């Protein structure tokens, strides 16, 4: 190959425009909230519903984030992701029920002394299970979608049964700690404290994820891996190790989501995981498989729509997610933020 006589001039910065931000799907969240306003008789009700929807969305986002990243990074769809949710919820329940006294105390400090260990236990156990899962169940079937789906379904069955073995088959009631029960009233609108907490935690998780993904070297590698994992590997990075890390972190997040969800429902049962799986898939499809931003927007949309329809047309509420998904797919067949591979 002959070198060209003239050295190629470096292209000016303008020649490589950054990817344009796609704002329309982002605007969808406030748009839906505003669109619901005229249908709901009173403003306070609307505020209550919106906060509830956002809280639900944030919790769903926590559970779904790991799933979408794992898919984007390694092309693995884990149908057993729901068990991390259940295991997290159960682990936290064990801790919380053991520390009943500090749960019922009215002081924030005492409550925190029960909640913090519970959340840590949930995340640790879910993360550990995730690590085991990646190691034993998923590793042998990379690149083979059919067997992936089958094997992860098998894992779902086994872990769900193991939960029955360890924690028993009955629904366990789980009262919320004293300081985050009840609601406060802002301009006639009753806002449950727990929902505000859920929104705050969700925002914190999203912010942390955003910072890690966009502002750190690790995040750069993960994003590059989503874009083209072979290239990252050929540059000498161990994409496998990166992937295990993401898998474990995603499982731990699902565990956190499970704790939040269990406290929201004030009970746990082994089916939580499987019930949430359907919602998670809908969120992933709406957001675009593999996209974290899409997952966030999708989760908020699902949360809001579920709460508005629950109020306006209770019969439709359970199916509203799927109608939403169909509408989004008609508009953008690959989801709100399509990712290259999906």
């Amino acid at each position: 190959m002959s070198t060209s006589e003239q050295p190629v001039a470096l292209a000016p910065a303008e020649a490589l425009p950054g990817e344009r931000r796609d704002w329309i799907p982002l605007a969808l969240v406030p748009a839906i909230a505003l669109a619901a306003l005229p249908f709901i008789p009173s403003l306070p009700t609307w505020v209550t519903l919106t906060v509830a929807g956002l809280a639900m969305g944030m919790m769903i986002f926590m559970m779904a984030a790991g799933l979408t990243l794992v898919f984007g990074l390694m092309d693995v769809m884990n149908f057993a992701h729901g068990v991390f949710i259940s295991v997290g919820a159960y682990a936290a329940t064990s801790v919380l029920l053991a520390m009943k006294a500090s749960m019922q105390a009215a002081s924030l400090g005492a409550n925190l002394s029960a909640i913090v260990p519970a959340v840590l236990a949930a995340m640790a156990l879910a993360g550990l299970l995730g690590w085991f899962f990646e190691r034993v169940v998923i590793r042998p079937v990379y690149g083979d979608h059919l067997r992936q789906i089958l094997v992860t379904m098998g894992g779902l069955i086994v872990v769900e049964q193991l939960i029955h073995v360890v924690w028993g088959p009955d629904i366990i009631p789980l009262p919320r700690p004293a300081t985050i029960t009840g609601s406060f009233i802002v301009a006639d609108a009753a806002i449950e404290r727990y929902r505000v907490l859920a929104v705050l935690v969700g925002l914190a998780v999203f912010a942390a994820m955003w910072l890690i993904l966009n502002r750190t070297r690790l995040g750069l590698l993960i994003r590059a891996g989503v874009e083209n994992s072979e290239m990252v590997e050929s540059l000498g990075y161990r994409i496998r190790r990166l992937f295990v890390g993401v898998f474990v972190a995603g499982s731990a997040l699902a565990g956190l989501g499970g704790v939040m969800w269990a406290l929201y429902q004030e009970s746990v049962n082994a089916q939580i995981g499987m019930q949430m799986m359907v919602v998670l898939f809908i969120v992933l499809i709406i957001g675009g498989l593999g996209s974290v931003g899409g997952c966030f927007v999708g989760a908020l949309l699902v949360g809001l729509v579920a709460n508005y329809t629950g109020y306006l047309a209770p019969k439709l509420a359970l199916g509203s997610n799927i109608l939403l998904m169909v509408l989004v797919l008609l508009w953008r067949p690959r989801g709100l933020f399509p990712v290259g591979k999906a």
Partner: protein
Amino acid sequence: MLRTLLSGDFPRSRALALVLIAILAGLALAPFVFPGTRSLDVAAKVAVFVLLVASYDLLLGYTGIVSFAHTMFFGIGGYGVGIAMAKLGAGWGSLALGIALALALSALLAFAIGLLSLRVRAIFFAMITLAVASFFQILASQLSWLTGGEDGLTYRLPELLLPATKLMDAPLLGVEVNGRLASYYLVFLAALAFFLVLLRMVNSPFGRVLLSIRENEFRSEALGYRTVTYRTVANCLGALGATLAGVLYAIWLRYTGPDTTLSFNIMIDILLMVVIGGMGTMYGAAIGATIFVIAQNYLQDLMKLASAATQDVPLLPNLLHPDRWLLWLGVLFILCVYYFPYGIVGRLRMRAARN
């Protein structure tokens, strides 16, 4: 004769042939050999699930599509019969109408789902079908004026199929010949016939194309086959098979409800049966369904004994608790996917081929 019946697809293993003959004979003679309501229930359930699992095998084993909507079609069949019987009266005409409408609805839905989502990748299809199936489940529980909601529908069947109907004055070989017997043989013979039809399909040129799509989609497309068309047709045929199984189950139970037809647990059962029996073999469906249904009904008794025997050991009694039988089948399922991709049937055939 036998070659035509089996479409030239013989068991190709003596052990497998013996097992299949045993299953067939057991089902054919069930009312006489295993008297009692429970064992007849088990036999009918085996017959229905052989058809249901075989139709799923057409999708999973032969075409390489993972669908989670199979119970939806099973449920459409069940509700087709249930609604027709409960609302239009227990006549043969309304039964036929219910079945025809159920088949039409299933074919239409399968066609729509297939056309919309079979173009894309396997995972996407699996996720979409899961969502659609759960939507259908919600629909069935919400439209309680039509479906009876969570309670389901209980109904009468045409006179001939009712247990109170006596068809012969004297008992035959010690078994009373009544409507129950008639409906058992209706279920058994219909399931057998449809199973043979499915066997015919997978051994036709059409079935060979499905196999080639499973093995290498890109290549089959390059050879000039429209893979999307083939997959969509396979999806519709699988759905029709499941609908017929649902019809038979509804006839046998004289009850249709979400727990017996639409529940996600049944979907998991189907997956277990097809993988343990052997994907892509059709006979695997027969073996898987038989093992599973028998385990479901009798393994628990065995586990109860084991659980009682290990009472003093910690945790072990819980692992062996009769309600945990699914745990062990789940483990078996995972092992099958890793080590025996063609399940029991594949294992037996491999051994026969080696000899």
